């Protein structure tokens, strides 16, 4: 085990896969010589050279189009879209081309590629550089969607995404880049599509993703300590495939479900999870399903405003406390 930061785990995951597979190539803006604006890809250019790690112009449609064309014809490209907000400038390539081509061609076309992107708020960057947009991808059939919360998962799930034969949207939460954690030595690959119960509890289940996971855990610890409420915390890790089995087990056990999303309210992944449970595990529920989200507003830039906009430990704590007795 070595301690790595979340950002170091990105480079470690890519390096692991580039070493074992010559067809893995990597492109994006300032990702090569400069090592990425979040310094998440430092060292890859020196290690794998200019043919495999390539800087591009500010041409997101070209970046993802190139990744798609290469994936269709035999490579396994990783493409970086610097901020997930910028997916909007190349959304056609993602949602209409990459996601749909296999189905439209009845399986003729394979699309083994990964789109990595820095997602989420907390850096005081304002509404165009802070969005959590994992739900944009979840709603598009044909995309797999992963969002890790720890360095170990970054490395293991990124490796799994690169090996996956389907297109994977890989959301790295900006506010976690500096966080540290143990990462297994040697080859490390996780299974995509499995949630993880990161804290076990009996009274209520809190389902969270990415940066909301540590907040949910902290809130759960406080609920235990201050209120004697025993909360499970589930780290979804992947939205597509979605681990409904784990969610259902939890709801069966606690009878109470709370989702914590960083994305704005409407049509977030929490809505989907809630609707699945309200349809398929209705009779297990002992209380309303609660959703804690960023309000349905663009994210403000100032520290004070951003902090009250994003779901906080305090908000999770209070919401659960008020509802569970």
């Amino acid at each position, binding site marked *: 085990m070595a301690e790595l930061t979340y950002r170091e785990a990105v480079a470690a995951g890519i390096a692991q896969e580039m070493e074992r597979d010559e067809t893995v190539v990597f492109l994006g803006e300032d990702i090569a010589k400069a090592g990425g604006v979040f310094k998440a890809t430092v060292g890859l250019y020196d290690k794998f050279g200019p043919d495999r790690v390539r800087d591009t112009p500010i041409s997101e449609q070209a970046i993802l189009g190139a990744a798609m*064309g290469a994936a269709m014809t035999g*490579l396994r490209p990783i493409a970086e879209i610097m901020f997930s907000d910028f997916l909007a400038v190349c959304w056609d390539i993602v949602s209409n081309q990459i996601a749909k081509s296999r189905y439209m061609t009845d399986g003729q076309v394979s699309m083994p590629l990964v789109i990595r992107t820095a997602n989420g708020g907390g850096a005081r960057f304002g509404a165009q550089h802070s969005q959590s947009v994992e739900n944009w991808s979840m709603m598009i059939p044909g995309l797999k969607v992963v969002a890790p919360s720890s360095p170990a998962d970054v490395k293991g799930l990124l490796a799994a995404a690169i090996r996956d034969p389907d297109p994977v949207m890989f959301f790295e939460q900006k506010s976690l880049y500096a966080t540290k954690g143990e990462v297994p030595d040697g080859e490390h690959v996780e299974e995509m599509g499995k949630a993880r119960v990161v804290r076990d509890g009996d009274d209520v289940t809190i389902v969270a993703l990415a940066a909301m996971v540590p907040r949910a855990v902290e809130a759960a610890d406080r609920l235990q300590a201050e209120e004697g409420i025993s909360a499970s915390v589930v780290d979804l890790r992947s939205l597509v495939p979605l681990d409904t089995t784990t969610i259902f087990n939890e709801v069966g056990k606690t009878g109470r479900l709370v989702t914590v999303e960083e994305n704005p309210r409407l049509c977030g992944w929490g809505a989907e999870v809630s609707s699945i449970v309200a349809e398929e595990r209705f009779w297990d529920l002992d209380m309303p399903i609660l959703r804690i989200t960023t309000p349905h507003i663009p994210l403000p830039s100032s520290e004070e405003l951003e902090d009250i906009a994003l779901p906080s430990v305090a908000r999770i704590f209070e919401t659960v406390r008020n509802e569970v007795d």
Partner: protein
Amino acid sequence: MAKRPVKKRASKSAKVPTPSATATLNDDIGEEKRLEMWRLQLEVRHMEQRLHDLFFQNLIKGTSHLAIGQEAIASGCAAVMRPDDYTFCTYRGHAHTKVRGVSMEKIIGEMMGKGNGLLGGKGGSMHLTDVDKGAMGSYAIIGAHLPIAAGAAWKAQYLKTGQVAFCFFGDGTTNIGAFHEALNFAVIWELPVVFVCENNLYMEYTPISEVTAVEHPAADRAGAYGLDSIIVDGNDADAVYRVARAAAEKARNGGGPSLIEAKTYRHSGHSRADPATYRPDGELEEWLKKDPIPAYRQRLKEFGISKKVIDDIEDAVLAELDAATEAAKNGAPPSEDSLMTEVWADGGSSWRN
């Protein structure tokens, strides 16, 4: 909408011999290639006319975009390609798909939404694809396939396969952002991709000159990417063949991309729904005189090829077409089960456990 004069257009007309009565059959193209191009043009023309008929018999639903009148471009380029080269085209791509040797039965079947269609009835008219033949897809949202073609060329470059990606698109496509990104990207990475703009004078129902800042939508933009400005008569398969051959050779030799503008005209409307009433009087008639099929027949004749050889090819094409049409008509609709297959590489569509 004032058209601005083109200021000092970065222009270099393609230095290729244009065919004339004095050319000989066994010139740089030769008899075999010419007969191949003759056959390809006929396959496309007759197949598309058949599709047109099937449409009006209500045997094809949805939409379709014919390229009748534009056959010389697809055929001239296909005659240049290696079997492992890649074709990327648009919804107006029946021609480009066919000329790669794709089964007529499967194309027609797909248009009819049959289970034995090229895409099992999932893609339809606008998405014809046959990966085994190098027909890497028909793209229906304007512009997207230009960077995608660049990506296929990147793979060829990276794995040093010597393959070339051909990318076909219309004049109207030159005004969308992806065009610009793809061209710049392909040039700086020196990718083996040949971009072919089929300028048929219209963006759907709007004359291209009303919405474009320069006279030649592709050729006048080549300079913006440090590329030569190349214009070719898109109704002359020989001329297309020659510029395409030069571009493909350049690409295979590491010389990077080319951008070719082929002047042509579609005889029918934009799509099935379009009677093309927006055309000025006489325009169609002028272009019918330049119809590539009779012109090429005439050229073959002038080269001394016998009427029988010329006609036999056409007869064979028609016979194949009739058989293909029958087989397609007899195809069953897609099975209900197929609805939920092939979203993922595992063959399924499950998004949960």
